[in-house]
């Protein structure tokens, strides 16, 4: 993996957007068909790393996200593998209909990798915090939707995306996350992972919330409760087999996402379980409100996205269990 060390000293932190930028620059060397588009945020999205090396395959379209998505679609039709990046709110909000009408409708081979997902964007405030992007992308036919939980998963996901023929949405984050996967980690479409085994409750997370779930499992362990923790980094297609298995095994679940509590992970898991294995469930997410300026940690507290919030929800949902 290029310049990355084989083993990462714990508790190393890596930013998913930085790792995207790095792996993209590596892939540029290996895949001459990769082109990259940005809408004047290449420093923030980290596509500048690719742009520096592959100037003729990088297209800045200026502050024009709708045009960027259409241009990416055309490049895909012309046989290239385009990666289009901007902030998640502009990618999925400003250009939703362009993604819908051309990329998803046409089932075109465009990779949308959007940075600055969720409220941990922090100081820029609610206007720049995408808390609806997963819902907006998940409803689109043909679109695969994913959120990496750390650096190795980001690199694996982006490498996988190049080999996959079809539209993909990947959300990265502004702030770094702890590294929990090793460099040999391979991403598989539609596959969730058990990060920790447990019998009393299942904690289901993606992105930063995977780490909050792991910390919540520690808190619960202190109270004698064993929690299974899942990383559902691939939100669509969803690993419903793993979810149903977890529901059967633990009898209750908590979902946790840095996103509104409607339309994203909590909704997706509820949809599957209510059809295939009705099970008590609690959703941790932002409750019908917009983001705010502040430090990421303060915002996680304010919006109820901490390990304490998750463990509290776990205790509540365990009391609703209908199966032992």
């Amino acid at each position, binding site marked *: 993996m290029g310049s990355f060390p084989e083993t990462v000293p714990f508790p190393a932190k890596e930013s998913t957007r930085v790792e995207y930028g790095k792996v993209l620059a590596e892939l540029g060397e290996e895949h001459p068909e990769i082109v990259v588009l940005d809408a004047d945020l290449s420093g923030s999205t980290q596509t500048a790393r690719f742009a520096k090396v592959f100037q*003729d395959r990088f297209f800045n379209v200026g502050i024009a996200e709708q*045009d960027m998505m259409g241009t990416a679609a055309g490049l895909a039709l012309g046989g290239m593998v385009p990666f289009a990046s901007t902030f998640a709110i502009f990618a999925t909000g400003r250009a939703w209909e362009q993604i819908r009408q051309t990329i998803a409708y*046409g089932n075109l081979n465009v990779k949308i990798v959007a940075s600055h997902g969720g409220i941990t964007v922090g100081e820029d405030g609610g206007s720049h915090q995408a808390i609806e992007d997963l819902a907006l992308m998940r409803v689109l036919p043909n679109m695969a939707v994913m959120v990496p939980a750390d650096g190795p998963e980001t690199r694996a996901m982006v490498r996988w995306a190049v080999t996959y023929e079809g539209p993909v949405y990947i959300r990265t984050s502004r702030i770094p996350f702890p590294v929990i996967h090793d460099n040999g980690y391979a991403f598989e479409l539609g596959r969730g992972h058990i990060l920790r085994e447990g019998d009393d409750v299942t904690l289901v997370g993606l992105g930063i919330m995977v780490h909050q779930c792991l910390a919540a499992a520690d808190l619960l362990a202190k109270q004698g409760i064993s929690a299974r923790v899942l990383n559902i980094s691939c939100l669509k297609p969803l690993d419903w087999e793993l979810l149903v298995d977890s529901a059967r095994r633990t009898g209750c679940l908590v979902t946790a996402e840095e996103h509104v509590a409607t339309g994203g992970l909590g909704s997706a898991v509820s949809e599957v379980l209510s059809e295939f294995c009705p099970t008590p469930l609690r959703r941790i997410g932002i409750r019908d409100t917009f983001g705010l300026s502040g430090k990421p940690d303060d915002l996680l507290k304010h919006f109820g996205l901490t390990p304490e919030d998750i463990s509290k929800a776990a205790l509540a949902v365990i009391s609703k269990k209908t199966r032992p």
Partner: protein
Amino acid sequence: MRDPNQLKEIAREIRLDIVEMLYQAGSGHVGGSLSATDALVALFFGHMHLEPGNACYPDRDFFVLSKGHAAPALYAILARLDFFPREELYTLRQFGSNLQGHPDSKCTPGVEVPTGSLGQGLSVANGLALALKLKNSRQRVYALLGDGEIQEGQIWEAAMTASHYSLDNLTAILDRNRLQIDGHTKEVMSVEPLAAKWEAFGWHTTEVDGHSIPDVLDALQACGSVKGSPSIIIAHTTKGKGVSIFEDQVKFHGVTPTTEEYHQAVKELQSA
């Protein structure tokens, strides 16, 4: 390059196809299909590098119907290029048809890009043109825009991009038929001065009578030799062209003819 008289005859037959398809479908956009017919016939049969019978011919030029509601005109042309059987034309808009109400590249051979939501095709054409440049290909990209369509802001984002990246392998045709669903463009939302706008955005801009096939052919030829900037041909047209009762009528944007109107249209086109 085909004989202009021969192209004129093709255009007449395409118009007959359009009227027949829309009459049988019972819905669809007649006015904007007929206004664009002559320019499209000139482009497809007199200019573009294509291989009849093989929609996937690797060295083909690309076409993007940004004004996707003119799908009937495009479908009639693609059938005539033997990209799919002619009988399919009369399945337009029906359940199970390969000919969707607006162009769908997943269904219809020869449709390169899904369109229908206005204002988006020029960006896609830009992307195609960029890809061809990266491959040092001599293939070209053509796009048909509507004059109402350019009220969409994305068109002007794309206009900047094409110019910024010197996409001289791209020629757009603007079907200036002066009408949109709600009325005259000058009443709904003024788009003039048109040529000055495109020139100001860095485009090689030319204006032609969009119903004169020789003039359109000349303009396409001239645009092909422009270096360093994209080209646009503003084709001055009449909405509903070729059928007197449809011509310049706001109503016939998206209303299909009654049985009586249909018979009159066929009669006029047969004797034209």
